[in-house]
């Protein structure tokens, strides 16, 4: 993807003063100290008037921000921002927001790691807040085409069609925000009403997109997550998509009034990584879809209308190597599952995990489509999917308003 780089060099540097607070995801003491020193040096070089404070987050029942020198010897196993909301533990985000508010920091960020040193990633992250009065910067990363597939298949198209803003990677666990936004987020009643959920990445991005604050995105280079073991699709679905369905409930009044979508200001140059070896086992994906239809059709009957079930049966009846869930059917399926999540047609974890074979069916078609494409071609393919999500939004709204009516 060729992103628009918004140059702000003309903006007066005198505006870039004050404190920048950075909360680094918990790491071992040595790497935390090294990262903190490197970040401080780069920030003082990049924003000369600013005073940078780098702290390390500690996960657990009582998250806190500590000096890198006081970081634990061994880092915690779970990520702090994404993990906290799921485990029902107090949110690390809240600790960072409170610290930013207490210090009156002009900008604050929650980071999981240091990024590509060859890029001006700290500039991309803080420039919009310090020099262009943005309130929120959503980091995006260069990734392989088949990485972050849940974001490509569900989260990006869904969030884009719901809120009308083209935030390319809204699922990340990193974020940068202004102190104004920090105070506004701290004032939200969700901390009191739904403490286990408030502070999750979906909650943060949902609150921002549904509100009036100025949001943008910044490309920070290669994905820092590394190539760890691939998370099981069903667990990932329940963990990532569930909170976004929850956001749909929370902002139902807002998203039903949004039509179409518009780009958000983008900083840095983004694109998918080229040169990826395409070794995806499409037969396994197709088998997973067919098996799901055979065994879970009765359960899906509680969620999906007969027309969609018929389309799925037709897709599964295709010759071997040809079965796939088309984009319009997939968009409707996602809306149907969101409605079922809201009305609790099926227990929520069961519902989300039962979506896996359908997701595999769509991924199978996507992999086939982009196998021979380059990064730009892949992005065009994703655009086509997003178009279907936006076109089918009317269907989603109708199902949301009249969930019992399968043929709106």
């Amino acid at each position, binding site marked *: 993807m060729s992103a628009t780089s918004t140059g702000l060099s003309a903006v007066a540097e005198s505006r870039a003063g004050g404190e920048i607070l950075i909360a680094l995801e918990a790491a071992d003491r040595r790497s935390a100290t090294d990262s903190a020193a490197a970040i401080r040096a780069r920030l003082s070089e990049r924003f000369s008037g600013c005073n940078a404070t780098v702290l390390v987050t500690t996960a657990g029942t009582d998250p806190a921000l500590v000096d890198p020198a006081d970081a634990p010897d061994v880092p915690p196993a779970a990520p702090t921002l994404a993990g906290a909301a799921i485990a029902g533990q107090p949110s690390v985000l809240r600790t960072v927001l409170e610290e930013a508010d207490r210090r009156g920091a002009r900008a604050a960020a929650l980071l999981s790691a240091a990024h590509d040193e060859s890029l001006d990633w700290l500039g991309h992250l803080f420039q919009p807040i310090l020099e262009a009065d943005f309130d929120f910067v959503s980091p995006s990363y260069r990734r392989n085409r*088949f990485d972050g*597939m849940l974001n490509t298949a569900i989260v990006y198209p869904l969030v884009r069609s719901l809120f009308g803003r083209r935030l390319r990677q809204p699922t990340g666990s990193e974020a940068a925000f202004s102190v104004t936004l920090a105070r506004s987020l701290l004032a939200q009643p969700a901390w009191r009403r739904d403490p286990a959920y408030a502070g999750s990445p979906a909650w943060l991005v949902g609150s921002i997109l549904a509100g009036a604050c100025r949001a943008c995105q910044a490309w920070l280079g290669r994905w820092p997550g590394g190539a760890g073991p691939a998370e099981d699709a069903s667990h*990932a679905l329940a963990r990532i998509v569930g909170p976004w369905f929850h956001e749909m409930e929370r902002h139902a009044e807002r998203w039903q009034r949004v039509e179409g979508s518009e780009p958000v200001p983008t900083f840095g140059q983004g694109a998918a990584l080229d040169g990826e070896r395409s070794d995806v*086992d*499409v037969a396994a994906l197709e088998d*997973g879809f067919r098996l799901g239809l055979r*065994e879970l059709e009765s359960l899906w009957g509680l969620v999906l209308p007969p027309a969609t079930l018929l389309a799925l049966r037709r897709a599964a009846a295709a010759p071997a190597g040809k079965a796939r869930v088309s984009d319009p059917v997939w968009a409707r399926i996602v809306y149907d599952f969101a409605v079922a999540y809201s009305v609790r047609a099926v227990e929520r974890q069961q519902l989300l995990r039962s979506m896996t074979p359908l997701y595999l069916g769509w991924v199978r078609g996507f*992999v086939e489509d982009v196998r021979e494409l380059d990064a730009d071609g892949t992005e065009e393919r994703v655009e086509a999917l997003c178009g279907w999500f936006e076109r089918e939004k009317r269907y989603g709204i109708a199902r949301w308003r009249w969930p019992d009516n399968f043929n709106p």
Partner: protein
Amino acid sequence: MWQNTKRVFLDSVEHILNAAAQLLPSVLAMLVIFIFTLVLAIAVRSVVRRLCNKLALDRRLREWGVAPVSSDSWASPTKLLTRISFWTVLLLGLFLGLSVLDTPVASAIDLRILEYAPRLLVAFAMFAIAVGIARVVERNVLIGAVNMGMQSARLIALGARWLVVLLGAAIALDHAGVGASVVPLAFGILFGGIVFALALAVGLGAKDLVARSLQRRFPDAGSVEAPPEQEEPRGGIHHV
């Protein structure tokens, strides 16, 4: 002769009237108990209905897959529970009322029934809960097995369901004191059979999956024969 017959007849009538007069307070007490029980049963039914509605029991049980989704509200869990609670209180009141009559047969039957009823009720509740849990387990296992790509997912889910039902039935029967040692024995045989069938189903339906999983866990063990496929069954996709 006539005088004699008349005397015997009057004696009998007097005897019956005396017996009736002696029984009358008990009958009245029984009627009072019946009326009280009826009022109590209606009150209990109302309380149970309100409690179920407050807990959204129908919705929750449908959501978990315990109760079938149907438009027939006559068969809803709330209706079922209110009916059961109503008739239980009414029947217990009936037996309590009969015990007031103080007749030897009625007293003996009532005593045994009243003594046995609580155990029977608890056993019934245990079995009903087990059936509910079995349905939840079945759906969870089915979804999990499908997501793991097991071809015999349905069979495994059914096996898991019947394991829970059997376990519940055995516990309920044991609690009710039915069958003595036959129940644990039969349960053991059936349980073992189902576990064996499940093991076969998993072994036959997902042998590749198990082999790959074992190979990942013990990479140095050369005895496990795995199919010549990649490490990651879904290919090189990172979902997150």
